[in-house]
């Protein structure tokens, strides 16, 4: 969606109201090839003045599994709906698969599952997918292939209304795969699934991400995102508060050192790694350094007569980072 005064997503995709003046903020075509999704200042307000999505700038690169993380009501689904053209932003712009959101040319390259899988309850799984195939302009031969991919061939002739929640979600993924899309947008695909179903869905997403697909998956489940995603965007109260790799998000590696006498150990470590690298945590010392220094650190402390009772790597969990970023209370 290109809005007045906003940079267009790609050359040749300008709307009538877009400026034609070159803008340094406009991504080059080469960069667009790398970014399957790019948004700038994407904003959606609702009638009562509620800002559901507030100036979101996000990028999803070709070939990655991108986790869109946020608590319930943070604006994940609204953002994804804007990306597939179901709702219009109030300001900002987005380029999805090189097109304005909702344009048929872009949608032809996208498979999506937004919120729960929605199909006609009176049609069988197979007939529902035939409907999807007809709309998408895909041959019916593809229907059984995607049913097989999500392990639903045996239930293909059953009415959708008789499917379990897990089967419904898998049918939703099958529909998303119908077009052999470059980009998959999956909104909370494990919602409502039992633990086994969640594990299966995670495996499926990981498998898809290892193939030719780029996957944008939203979730409020941190463990899920940590397991399957290369990069993460964290959204809170409509704002994208952080976008980085999972490793970057969790912070740099550090070592926890519990040693006596503590003040001698602290002085030695400060000399070795610099004073800013040494901190206090839970009655022990936290040293910001690579894990490969642990053996040398241990040997030097021992040689100096410092007794090391505990030496182990420490890293913030994604959960800790998430709660820091979103300001949510842990355990609430």
């Amino acid at each position, binding site marked *: 969606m290109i809005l007045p005064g906003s940079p267009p997503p790609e050359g040749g995709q300008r709307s009538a109201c877009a400026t034609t003046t070159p803008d340094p903020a406009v991504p080059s075509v080469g960069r667009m090839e790398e970014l399957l999704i790019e948004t700038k200042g994407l904003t959606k307000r609702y009638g009562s003045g509620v800002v559901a999505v507030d100036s979101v700038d996000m990028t999803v690169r070709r070939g990655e599994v991108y986790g869109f993380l946020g608590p319930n009501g943070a604006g994940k689904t609204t953002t994804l709906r804007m990306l597939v053209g179901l709702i219009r932003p109030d300001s900002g712009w987005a380029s999805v698969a090189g097109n304005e959101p*909702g344009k048929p040319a872009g949608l032809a390259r996208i498979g999506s599952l937004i919120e729960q899988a929605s199909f006609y309850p*009176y049609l069988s799984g197979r007939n529902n997918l035939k409907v999807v*195939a*007809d709309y*998408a302009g895909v041959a019916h031969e593809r229907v059984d292939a995607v049913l097989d991919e999500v392990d639903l061939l045996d239930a293909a002739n059953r009415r959708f209304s008789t499917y379990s929640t897990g089967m419904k979600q898998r049918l939703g993924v099958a529909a998303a795969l119908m077009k052999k899309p470059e980009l998959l947008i999956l909104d909370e695909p494990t919602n409502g699934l039992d633990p086994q179903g969640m594990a299966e869905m995670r495996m499926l997403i990981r498998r898809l991400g290892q193939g030719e697909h780029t996957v944008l998956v939203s979730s409020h489940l941190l463990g899920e995102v940590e397991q399957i995603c290369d990069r993460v965007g964290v959204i809170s109260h409509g704002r994208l508060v952080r976008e980085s790799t999972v490793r970057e998000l969790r912070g740099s590696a550090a070592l926890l050192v519990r040693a006596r006498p503590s003040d001698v150990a602290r002085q030695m470590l400060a000399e070795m790694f610099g004073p800013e690298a040494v901190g206090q945590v839970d009655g022990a010392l936290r040293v910001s350094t690579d894990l490969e220094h642990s053996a040398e650190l241990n040997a030097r402390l021992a040689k100096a007569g410092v007794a090391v009772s505990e030496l182990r790597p420490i890293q913030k969990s994604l959960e800790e980072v998430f709660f820091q970023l979103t300001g949510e209370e842990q355990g609430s």
Partner: protein
Amino acid sequence: MIGSIKAEWRKLAHRPANMIAVGGLLAVVVLIYSVGYIEYTWPVASQAARAALLKQGLYPGGLVKNLIDGVMPLGAAMTLVLGALATGGEYGWGTLKTVLTQGPGRIQTLVAKLVVAALGVALVTALFYSAGAIASMIVAGIDGHAIAWPATIDVAKALGATWLILYCFGLLGMALGFVFRQSAAAVGIGLVYLVVVETILSRFIIGFRGGDYRWIAKGLSGANATALVQSFGQIIVDPRAAAPLVGGTHAVVTLGAYAVALALVSATLLRWRDVH
């Protein structure tokens, strides 16, 4: 576009509500002829002469006059409900988002719905008259009555008028489905409008200030549909009955305008509103 039409047809053809409605319509035809046959063959003594006239309508020659009475408001109400279910259901089940994310544009999706609705109504119209024709042949056969069909042009006009009325009210139901983004309110308000509001409004307007505002009533959809039905004449002319409000041609033009306007309302709502 062909793909979207195929998809819409698959949905229409498999939907139980549509099957039930068509079955119900055919049952109505059977009832009209079977109950009519019993009533007019063995009438109460005081009604014998009238019954003899009415029985003529059960023979093939009375096909058009006998059946077209069932179109308004019964058939119109049926297609209004089915139209509301067709579009309101897409919101209720959340399937509109499934459809729109597959790639067809919103207007293309609507055009496919309109085309399939037009074809569906044509099929229902053909089935309705075919069932009536078979029933009338059976009645004629039982009575040993000669089989003489109405003029082809009259049958063609009746088919066209029936299609137009059913399609117009089907489009009203579809537009209400888009307005309310659900089936229940669309069906309820649509039926109340068709059966109650139009009737009361029409009578009020016609009677108000000695009929000075009669021209308003001439623009109401129900009044035009009723007039179109009446333009085919009746088996027994009731001298006390009010004359049709408008002529057949006026009714066709007005209903056609309604159909276009309702399609435009649907297109505007689908094109510009967010889909949640």
